C-alpha cells in the first residue's frame, strides 16, 4: 500500500561467499550491497552488484535474495525468495 510504513537497511559484502573481510569490508573491497525493505509483514532483501568507485548499485545483477513473511516466520528462518508461489510478490517488491 502507498502509505505502508517501511524501513530500509543495507549491508555491504566483498564477495558472495564468506571470507575474512565479509563482516567489515573496506570501501574499495565492496562488491555486493544487500538492500532491505521491511514492513510489519515482510522483509525483502536483494543482494546486488555494487561499484565502490562511483557508489552505484546494479539491480539487474542480483547475487541473492531473501523474502521472509514475518507474521508466520518472525525469526526469519524460512527464505521464500525462490519459492515460485511468491514470484509475483517478489516482482512487486522489486
Amino acid at each position: 500500500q502507498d502509505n505502508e510504513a517501511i524501513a530500509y537497511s543495507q549491508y555491504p559484502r566483498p564477495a558472495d561467499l564468506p571470507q575474512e573481510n565479509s563482516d567489515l569490508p573496506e570501501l574499495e573491497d565492496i562488491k555486493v550491497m544487500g538492500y532491505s525493505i521491511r514492513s510489519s509483514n515482510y522483509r525483502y532483501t536483494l543482494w546486488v552488484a555494487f561499484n565502490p568507485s562511483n557508489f552505484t548499485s546494479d539491480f539487474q545483477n542480483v547475487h541473492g535474495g531473501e523474502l521472509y513473511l514475518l507474521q508466520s516466520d518472525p525469526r526469519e528462518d524460512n527464505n521464500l525468495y525462490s519459492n515460485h508461489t511468491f514470484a509475483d510478490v517478489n516482482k512487486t517488491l522489486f
Partner: protein
Amino acid sequence: APIGRSVSGHMNVLFIVIDDLRTTLGCYEDPLVKSPNIDQLASRSTRFQNAFAQQALCAPSRTSFLTSRRPDTTRLYDVGSYWRNHAGNYSTLPQYFKMNGYTTMSVGKVFHPGIASNHSDDYPYSWSMVPYHPSTEEYENRKTCKGKDGQLHANLVCPVNVTEVPEGTLPDIQSTEEAIRLLKSVQNSTEPFFLAVGYHKPHIPFRYPQEFLKLYPMENITLAPDPDIPKRLPSVAYNPWTDIRKREDVQALNISFPYGPIPKEFQLLIRQSYFASVSYMDSQVGKVLSSLDALGLANNTIVVFTSDHGWSLGEHGEWAKYSNFDVATKVPLLMYVPGLTSSFLKAGEQRFPFIDPFHLPQRQINRGLKTNIVVELVDLFPTLCELAGLAVPQACPEPSFDVELCTQGKSIAKLLHPDAAV
C-alpha cells in the same frame, strides 16, 4: 516560562545511545533480562516496537542517524571516511540544536571515534565543548580478563572485579559520572541543553562488573531458538563473525571458519555475559536518569533511548551484527516527553528513582505507551526538532549531496501522542 520548558522556551534533550543493544530488555517482553531502570523509563515513554537502524555497523549507523541521511548519501559503509570530506557537509542533529541556542555536550561513544568523525567526534561543529571520553577506554581490548590459569587474557567473556582493573573503574562508569557532573553544571543554565551519552556495553568484549553474573544463573540461560544457518539463506547474506574469533577464549575453541558452530556450552556463556552486560549498562542508565530527576530536570527534558543496531545472539548461526536480519537491525527506541508521554511531575514526586537490579521485589509490569508502526533511526533528527519546538528540516531532494540541512527521515512525533499509541 511555560510549564516544562526552560527559560528559552525549549525543552532540554538527554540522548542516550547504546552500543550493540538489541531489543533484549524487560520492556520489550524479554522473559530473562533484568533491565529495571530502562523498563521504568519505558513506562513513562512511548516504546517503538519496530524501530530499525539503516546499517548494522556502528560508524555507518551513527553517522546516518546523526545526520539523518542514509548510508548511500553519507557514502559511509565502513569506518574509513568523514562524511563532510567524503560525501557532503551535512549538518548533524547536535549541530542543529547548537545552532538554535542549545549547549550541546557529548559523553562516551556518540559519534563513532576515529576518522569517521574526523578524530574529534565532529567537534566543534556538533558540540559546544570538547567531547568527553573515559580514560579507561584504552583498556577495553587489553588483557584484563582473569582466566582459569590465573593469568590475564583478552577474552570475549570477561566479568571483572572492578577494584582490580586498571584505574579501578570501567568506561561506562566513568561516562555516568561525567554525565551527572554535566547535568549539575547546566542545572540552572538559562540555555537549554542537549546532552548525548553513549554507552559502550553490551558491545564486545563483555567486560563488566562480575557481580552482574549473579542475575543470570547458568541454569536459566537457553540457546537461541533458531541456532542453525537457514537452509535457503544465500551465502552472501551470512556473516562469519570474525571479530569474536579473535578473542583468546574463542580462539582456544578452534572453531572452523566460516560456519562454526560454537560449542553449545560456550554459546550459553556468550548469552549469559551479553545479558549481564545489558544489566550493567541498565544500572548506569538508571544512575543518570535518577540524577536528572534529583536535579529537577525531569519536567523539562526529553529523553531518547536507543541503540546503533542489534546483535545476533546465535540466531541463524551468527554472533555479530553485520547483517540485514531483524536481530541485527532492530533497535530499542524509547521517547520520554514530559507532559506528553507522561504527565508533568508534581512537587515531591519522583519520576526515575534508581532501581537496584539485585533487590527487585518482583518483575515490573510495564504500562507505558507503545506503537507497532515501523520507524527508522533517520527519523530521530526531525522528530527531536519537532518535539523541542525547532523548525523541522525539509525532506531531502534526490540527490542531496550539496544540501547541508535536510532529512531523509520523517518526524514521528505524532506517534508519541497517547491517542496514537497502544
